[in-house]
């Protein structure tokens, strides 16, 4: 327990009352009850060798490398499992011959059957076995027998390879898979020196988190197909970065060599991703280098041609300036805060428009109002730690394992400690099962009604201090859901968190890249807000456009109807819009289209000016994760020749006669200078509950590993994705047979059938996986009515 004590005038000193006094290597120290010897020693800077020990895994005391002497105990004890008690006198290898000899003995044993192939091993140079053999091992071995041999390597999954002869059986990988990821698909097999890690026949280690096992392997036994034999650690340059894939906000380490990213690792951030990340964040980075647009282009006689930067900027500036007041901006969901802010500023100052949106997905006016009232610029109220300590977490239109995997890991950890996870969803997904979650079965479209008729016990749980409601971006597609979530939060006192899927959405919202909003959640119509922002931007408040801009579907429809003379488009994939045909028609209808992109797309194919921009490794910036926590990152390739979106926009603005900052430092300073908004806000939406349509209704979300464009270029990663299937009820499955055809207005897909505990009349398919892209293939959104028939029949 912690009490606060006034130790002196004006100083609050925290005094812990549960401390015990122990001695390690003659140094007296105080530690909380329950502290392990190895952790306490670390605090003193005493490094006890270890292999099986990992601070986030339960101790097993299997490798015995950390044996130390405890006064009064007849045998050496494993420091990784020995809990300190008051008065305990511990002697490590630095003050005890028993401990030193025990550790040397274990090290000798560990190296017996180890191939010592360090010169060709990927781990060589960053290998705990290598390092600790040097620090605590004997210089020579007494073993001259035959070492155990295994066929090498074996694929435990398409992505993860295992060289069994290097393994020291520490079981970190198997414990991670079981305890952290909840995917116990690898385990130790056989016994004695033949003990080895393996999988069941035909059940590969297809876990979304499998790459973490490679990172925590203390030897070179586990390697990834992506990195194996690619580099030596000492040839790499490491830069701390932030993951750009989802809104989990993982801290990463990017290692590059000769201007190319060689690998990415999860970096240690106890408040966010702890020491983990998902395989998408780890392995999906080939897109950074492959297929890039390398020079500006201008459309001439219907064809794009390469242009110089000055020419392209001049053409873009002219076309956009001519459209002032009649232009729209599509930012995309993957911008940094700084870039999104530059778009928001550019729209209002150069284009004189409030027709701007960052959302490339299903949206609704209700969602726009919800974001403006309840999310934009709101202070951080719910954190990862808050989830871990929450008595209950209600998930609404949100599948954490697929849509924000680090939220999933933290919720799973919380659930193991007693947090009740409850999900409003069509069926219990694998992720919910792994969180021991409770399902409130809900037909797509009926989420609002479910929230408004929540079981009393769940409502009571949400009333407990610290409870959280997490609502996903898909809630926008179900009328009344966001309104009901706000109501529920107000009624129960639970905190409300909105979890978008893309890394840039929360930042873009806070930066004002949404119609009606200025930075920090300031309403564009609010006089004080206008005055503050106009001052920051060096213009008169009257020069700002009115706050009746269009967003979402209305923006696209306006474009299609020829309202805009110009469109400024950031990183936008038209197929990600719920109606790709509408989005394509919108681009086609605009008189002049400027595309800031790093890869060719359906937008660049239609653009009049294409301006290549930097990817995350070529710029610095900030993502804001779902918590609202800024996740700044620095430039990996400092000599990159590419420019960020903000820099390019600054150049266009300049050519159009408007001064706008383009460097990250100035943008941050300007945005920071505006500070938080304390004035009036939009009111929260209060929409009536929608209904699920009659007949068969479609449930869907994006799988973590799917046909997303940023995952291109890594077939090993793609091979670990979940299969594209249609999930139906057992009765429906029996009627359908092995495959089912799902038909919507735009066409149909035929998929293998998987039976689950899902309501009759609901079919789930992945939103954008190989062989099933619901927007393009079916022409539908989740919650739509579809036809379901036995496979093959249309």
């Amino acid at each position, binding site marked *: 327990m912690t009490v606060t004590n006034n130790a002196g005038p004006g100083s609050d000193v925290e005094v812990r009352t549960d401390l015990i006094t122990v001695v390690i290597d003659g140094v007296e120290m105080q530690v909380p009850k329950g502290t392990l010897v190895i952790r306490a020693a670390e605090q003193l800077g005493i490094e006890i060798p270890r292999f099986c020990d990992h601070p986030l895994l339960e*101790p*097993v*005391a*299997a*490798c*015995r*490398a950390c*044996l130390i002497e405890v006064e009064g105990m*007849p*045998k*050496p004890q494993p420091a990784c*499992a020995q809990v300190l008690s008051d008065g305990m006198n511990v002697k490590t290898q630095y003050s005890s011959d028993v401990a030193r*000899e*025990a550790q040397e*003995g*274990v090290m*000798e*044993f*560990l190296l*017996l*059957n180890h191939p010592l192939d360090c010169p060709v091993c990927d781990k060589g140079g960053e290998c705990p076995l290598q390092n600790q053999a040097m620090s605590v091992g004997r210089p020579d071995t*007494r*073993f001259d*027998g*035959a070492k*155990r041999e295994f066929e090498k390597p074996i694929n435990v999954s398409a992505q993860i390879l295992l060289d069994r002869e290097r393994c*020291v*059986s520490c079981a970190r990988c198997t414990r991670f898979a079981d305890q952290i990821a909840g995917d116990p698909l690898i*385990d*130790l097999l*056989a*016994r*004695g*020196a*033949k*003990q080895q890690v393996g999988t069941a026949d035909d059940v590969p280690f297809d876990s979304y988190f499998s790459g973490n096992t490679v990172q925590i392997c203390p030897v070179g036994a586990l390697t990834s197909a992506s990195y194996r034999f690619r580099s030596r650690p000492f040839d790499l340059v490491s830069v701390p970065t932030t993951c750009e894939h989802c809104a989990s906000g993982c801290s990463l380490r990017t290692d590059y060599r000769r201007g190319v990213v060689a690998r990415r690792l999860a970096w240690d951030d106890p408040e966010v991703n702890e020491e983990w990340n998902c395989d998408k964040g780890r392995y999906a980075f080939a897109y950074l280098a492959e297929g890039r647009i390398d020079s500006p282009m201008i459309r001439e006689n219907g064809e794009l041609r390469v242009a110089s930067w000055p020419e392209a900027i001049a053409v873009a500036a002219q076309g956009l300036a001519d459209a002032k007041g009649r232009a729209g901006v599509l930012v995309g969901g993957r911008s940094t805060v700084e870039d999104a802010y530059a778009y928001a500023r550019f729209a209002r100052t150069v284009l004189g428009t409030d027709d701007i949106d960052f959302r490339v997905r299903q949206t609704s006016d209700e969602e726009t109002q919800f974001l403006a009232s309840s999310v934009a610029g709101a202070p951080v109220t719910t954190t990862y730690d808050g989830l871990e300590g929450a008595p209950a977490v209600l998930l609404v239109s949100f599948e954490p394992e697929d849509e924000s995997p680090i939220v999933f890991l933290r919720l799973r950890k919380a659930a193991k400690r007693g947090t009740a996870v409850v999900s409003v969803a069509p069926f219990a997904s694998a992720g919910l099962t792994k969180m021991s979650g409770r399902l409130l079965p809900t037909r797509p479209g009926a989420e609002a009604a479910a929230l408004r008729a929540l079981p009393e016990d769940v409502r009571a749980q949400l009333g407990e201090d610290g409870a959280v409601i997490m609502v996903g971006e898909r809630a926008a597609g179900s009328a009344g859901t966001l309104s009901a979530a706000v109501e529920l939060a107000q009624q129960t006192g639970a905190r409300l968190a909105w979890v978008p899927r893309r890394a840039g959405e929360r930042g873009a919202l806070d930066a004002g890249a949404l119609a009606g909003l200025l930075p920090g959640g300031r309403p564009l119509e609010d006089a004080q807000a206008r005055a503050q922002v106009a001052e920051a931007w060096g213009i008169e408040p009257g020069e700002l456009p009115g706050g009746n801009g269009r967003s979402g579907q209305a923006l696209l429809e306006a474009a299609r109807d020829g309202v805009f003379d110009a469109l400024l488009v950031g990183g936008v994939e038209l197929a990600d819009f719920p109606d790709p045909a509408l989005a394509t028609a919108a681009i086609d209808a605009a008189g002049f289209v400027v595309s800031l992109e790093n890869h060719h797309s359906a937008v660049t194919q239609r653009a009049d000016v294409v301006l290549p921009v930097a990817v995350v490794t070529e710029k610095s910036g900030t993502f804001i994760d779902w918590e609202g926590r800024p996740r700044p990152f620095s430039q990996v390739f400092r000599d990159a020749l590419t420019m960020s979106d903000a820099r390019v926009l600054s150049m266009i603005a300049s050519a159009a006669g408007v001064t706008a900052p383009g460097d990250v430092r100035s943008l941050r300073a300007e945005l920071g200078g505006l500070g938080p908004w304390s004035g009036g806000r939009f009111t929260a939406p209060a929409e009536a509950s929608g209904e699920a349509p009659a007949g068969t209704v479609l449930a869907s979300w994006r799988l973590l590993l799917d046909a997303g464009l940023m995952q291109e270029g890594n077939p090993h990663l793609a091979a670990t994705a979940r299969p594209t299937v249609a999930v139906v009820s057992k009765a429906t499955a029996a009627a359908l047979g092995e495959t089912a055809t799902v038909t919507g207005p735009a066409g149909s897909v035929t998929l293998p059938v998987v039976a689950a505990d899902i309501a009759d009349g609901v079919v789930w398919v992945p939103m954008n996986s190989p062989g099933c892209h619901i927007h393009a293939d079916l022409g539908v959104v989740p919650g739509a009515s579809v036809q379901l028939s036995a496979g093959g029949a249309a």
Partner: protein
Amino acid sequence: MALTPVITEHWDDPELFTIDGYRRHGGYRALESAIHQDPDALIALVKDSGLRGRGGAGFPTGLKWSFVPQDGKPHYLVVNGDESEPGACKDIPIMLANPHSLVEGVIITSYAIRANHAFIYIRGEVPEAIRRVANAVREAREAGYIGKNILGSGFDLDVVVHAGAGAYICGEETALLDSLEGFRGQPRLKPPFPAVAGLYAAPTVINNVETICNIPYLVDRGVDWFRQFGTEKSPGFKVFAISGHVNRPGIYEAPLGITMRELLDYAGGMRDGREVKFWLPGGSSVPMLTADHLDLPLTYEDIAAAGSMLGTGTPMLFDDTVSVVKAVTRWLEFYKHESCGQCTPCREGTYFITGTLERFEEGHGTDREMDTLADLCGQISGRSFCALGDAAATPYPAAMKYFRDEFVAATSTPVDQQFDPAASYVFSGAIAR
């Protein structure tokens, strides 16, 4: 000292394994009295008797039972019938010949510790024993000794007979629990001890088969009767299973405190009038003793004082046709084969030692390797995760203590040239030379 057949008293009755045969000799009389007694009184009775665990460690049984918290939460009795120790062959004969004494003991013990579920884990390689115990449980259930409201006492009990899958390590009690739960058998980290968090994380008492078989007789005949056998620290009688180069190997039930020499006489002495060269009081995991130790009383305390352990109480005797180097190598090969692989010292140490010993056996050992072997045993003993590692580190140091010369000889001459292997076969007389 006279033999004292108790558990083995009626083994000559071919029907003893049936419930009728067992009841003919007073079977289930103890249960009928115990089931109406205060459970705490039964625990006190066992405590007072001084009965010590017969599985090898000799932990006081009544004390173990008293550790189980009686807070109304579920807890279990698990019987360890995974007898796999080289040289140990007492539990399996008991389960074959007198399975109902085990079942009766299980019911009384479960009642005493207030467990409503008991599990009998039997070594998978002996289907005959599994069948007999399973049959005994079925008969006991049909007779109303197992099930709901046993003998009108209000006490419910279910007994499950579970077959092991062939791993020595599953005789280690926490590995046994993992195996019983359906996992791969590997020892668990302690604490928590099974008495606090054992099977399915519930408080669990784990007793050896022979220990449990003592219970009906103890309950029926009382503490005074029990304590007339044995010593103050090792009261009672013991099922000694004698094997090796003796004329009549087999089961001899005698009071604790009988000497090896007396037991050897019952077993007809060494074959062909040969001398005892070395012997192990209780399985391959205890240090060997020599002919000089034949007059030691077989008690936990006396054997420990001589530097060995009573262990399972199943003496193995070897005559002078046997090479100590060869015997130690065979044992180490066993431990290497059976090491579960969880901890480094046992997994790698047995691999290293065995390979080295095999070279000695071929006459290719070196003086330096003799020291290395001693070192390696020191690197395992007290450093491994469970007692299997300690056991693997036992044979070599004990052998070196008494028979160093044989290892020295093995640095130049293959063992088979020093000792004719055929001569050491138990049935050597039957083998044509």
